[in-house]
């Protein structure tokens, strides 16, 4: 069964920004949500989200940044 990478984001209080906490491998979004809950259950998250890694739109990668002129 083909698996995809889902990035996991969470926050523990409403004052805190949503932060990247890790990733899970899963064959679909339903299992990715369960895996995020069970793998990263060391905190009492008030919000926990998953995003398919391939859906993240890059602005630049480190390699690209090295090629940006004038910095």
């Amino acid at each position: 069964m083909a698996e995809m990478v889902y990035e996991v984001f969470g926050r523990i209080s409403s004052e805190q920004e949503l932060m990247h906490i890790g990733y899970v491998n899963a064959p679909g979004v339903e299992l990715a949500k369960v895996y995020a809950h069970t793998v990263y259950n060391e905190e009492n998250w008030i919000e926990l989200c998953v995003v398919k890694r391939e859906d993240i739109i890059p602005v630049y990668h480190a390699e690209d940044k090295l090629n940006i002129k004038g910095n």
Partner: protein
Amino acid sequence: MAEKVKETLPKGTEDEFKSLLLAISDTKLLLGYHFGEWTFRTPSLESGIATCNFAQDELGHVRLFHGLLKNHSNETDATLIHERQAENYNSISCLNSSISSWLELITFSAVIDGGVTILLESMSDSSFRPLRERVEKILQEEKFHSDYTDAWVVALANDGNGSSEMVGDVFKKAVPVFASWLNKLNASNLIEAGVLKTSLEETLGNSFTKFEALIKKAGLDLPDPEEMASDDSSDFLQFPQEEIIYSLRGEKNEVFRV
């Protein structure tokens, strides 16, 4: 007018309460055992972590129910676990022996854990506060169990490796044994006293609705309703295997019991 919530069990419900909670906690104990047994045989590390989590959850639920039985019935750790004989268990029979495949574990769990959760939902508004409070916590955790097993059932039924028919066959085995277990329970006094809010017949109907929705979502053929309700548990042991009971009682290391 809102119903009064009580701290003690209403008179006349004690026997039904004890039988019902034992049947649920026996089933959850076996579910926890199988989840634990399969922790290191899952298809991925993530599913191993989830399965291990659910083993912990199920054992935690057993502990909550055993706590209620100790406080509101004459049960002790000895009568509930350590000295309990296999023939006194009232677990759902498809859990009474080893589970032979990942597909079977997932499908049995979807039906058994899913069906028992529907039964617990009828206690979430119970007139008996200690039960209501415990069930609230359990239902929060069960949401993830249901999401997990349902997603796996759908994935297995559509894996392109011919598992679809096998998932359907396991469903057809599990649903009747769940129905048979539920039909043998008695809760008329509990319902009259508001400890349970839904009759067991209605709970069975709600469970069938849940199973049908999952079967449909997985793209499987719906079994004949008569087949789903048939009382056929001949494929399974009536009581848990001695080997499993030995593990559940903690006999191997009982010398260290404090």
